């Protein structure tokens, strides 16, 4: 019989080990989400521009990022950038930049589908009113693309939140790391990993539920 003992899990342990990592995981998720969506939207616009000199680099970037395992990108970025800039970057900063760049590839595919979901007629209507490309995209197409894709963008963000645990590869202090250290210090690794799993599950699952609700609401509005 497996003997589990959670007695060591006092509020002090939680505030001492877990909170710091939790905050970083949230920060990483938010930064990579916002930065990834902005960068991804630009990549999507490049790929849909019809101009070869914009399409080619954007397509190459997206396909490369989507073909390499995330954990390798994290490692390589962490190891290579100090060689380029001549000083270490720190695991946390490195993770923030890597995740933004990596997630941009995935968000760009979502935004590309979203932009294509807006009819050509809407673009024509914007132009016919005298709007420029920027105005037509910014005022007419992207708001609709974003609204249409909101559930998918949020689902990708939930996956992103789970993937942030991969920063263990470079030793950044995230939510999982907090549990890992607590487990080592109190010699209770099974319990801490169990609690970590339950916590990841609760957060991810309740967010998925929220997305489902949102999806229904969008379906009604349409």
């Amino acid at each position, binding site marked *: 019989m497996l003997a589990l003992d959670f007695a060591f899990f006092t509020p002090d342990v939680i505030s001492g080990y877990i909170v710091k990592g939790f905050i970083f995981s949230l920060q990483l998720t938010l930064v990579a989400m916002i930065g990834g969506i902005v960068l991804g939207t630009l990549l999507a616009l490049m790929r849909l521009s019809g101009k070869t000199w914009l399409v080619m680099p954007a397509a190459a970037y997206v396909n490369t990022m989507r073909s390499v395992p995330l954990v390798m990108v994290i490692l390589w970025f962490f190891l290579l950038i100090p060689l380029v800039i001549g000083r270490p970057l720190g695991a946390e900063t490195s993770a923030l930049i890597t995740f933004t760049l990596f997630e941009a590839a995935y968000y760009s595919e979502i935004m590309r589908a979203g932009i294509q979901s807006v009819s050509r*007629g809407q673009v024509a209507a914007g132009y016919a009113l005298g709007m420029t490309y920027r105005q037509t995209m910014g005022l007419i197409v992207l708001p609709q693309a974003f609204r249409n894709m909101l559930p998918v963008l949020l689902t990708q963000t939930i996956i992103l939140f789970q993937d942030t645990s991969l920063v263990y590869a470079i030793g950044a202090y995230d939510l999982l790391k907090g549990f890992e250290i607590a487990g080592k210090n109190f010699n209770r690794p099974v319990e801490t990993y169990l609690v970590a799993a339950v916590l990841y599950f609760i957060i991810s699952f309740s967010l998925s539920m929220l997305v489902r609700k949102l999806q229904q609401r969008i379906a009604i509005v349409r």
Partner: protein
Amino acid sequence: MIEIKNISKWYGAFRVLTDCTTQVEKGEVIVVCGPSGSGKSTLIKCVNGLEAFQQGDIFVNGTSVGDPKTNLPKLRSHVGMVFQHFELFPHMTITENLSIAQVKVLGRSRDEANERGMKLLDRVGLKQHAHKHPGQLSGGQQQRVAIARALSMDPICMLFDEPTSALDPEMVNEVLDVMVQLAQEGMTMMVVTHEMGFARKVSNRVIFMDQGSIVEDATKEDFFGKPRSERAQQFLSKILSH
């Protein structure tokens, strides 16, 4: 006002427009008709540069549409266009639909734009719907808003691309009424439509297109009285037989 000179257009090897020439004088109402696929929608979209053409040129109020140096957004800002599928912006209220281009393109203040928008909305009889989103209106109502939106830019001429083709029959007239009123006020209009009643009532000339060419360009009396081409005669007998 609008001069179309020897326009030709290809989609790859397929020629959609062949040497089309015509003009619309200030205050004139021109109806463009013809079977589907005859290039009439393509031609009207060339007028404000929504479709590119490979040969010939179009002049709107003296400005060349084909010249790459022409500021197309500026040209389009005073050429109103109404689409078959309305193309109101679904993420905005009716008020916002009417004011957005006035503010962003013409640089009017939001108050000024809203006032102008409301005046035009009242004119098409939809003032009480200002706060709604396009999805909450019927097709006929949406198309009237689309006309008001185009008018809010104070256009020098109006292009209509099959404005009633996507409407249920009972909604066609409410849109045509607005268009007739506009024509009677002296607006320069180029209208792609199959509504021959509208053509009879307010048009000055009727252009008949077939397979990318302008086959007939005649006064409405001549067009309905004695169309010269056999193709136009066939077309008229088909759509007027009921």
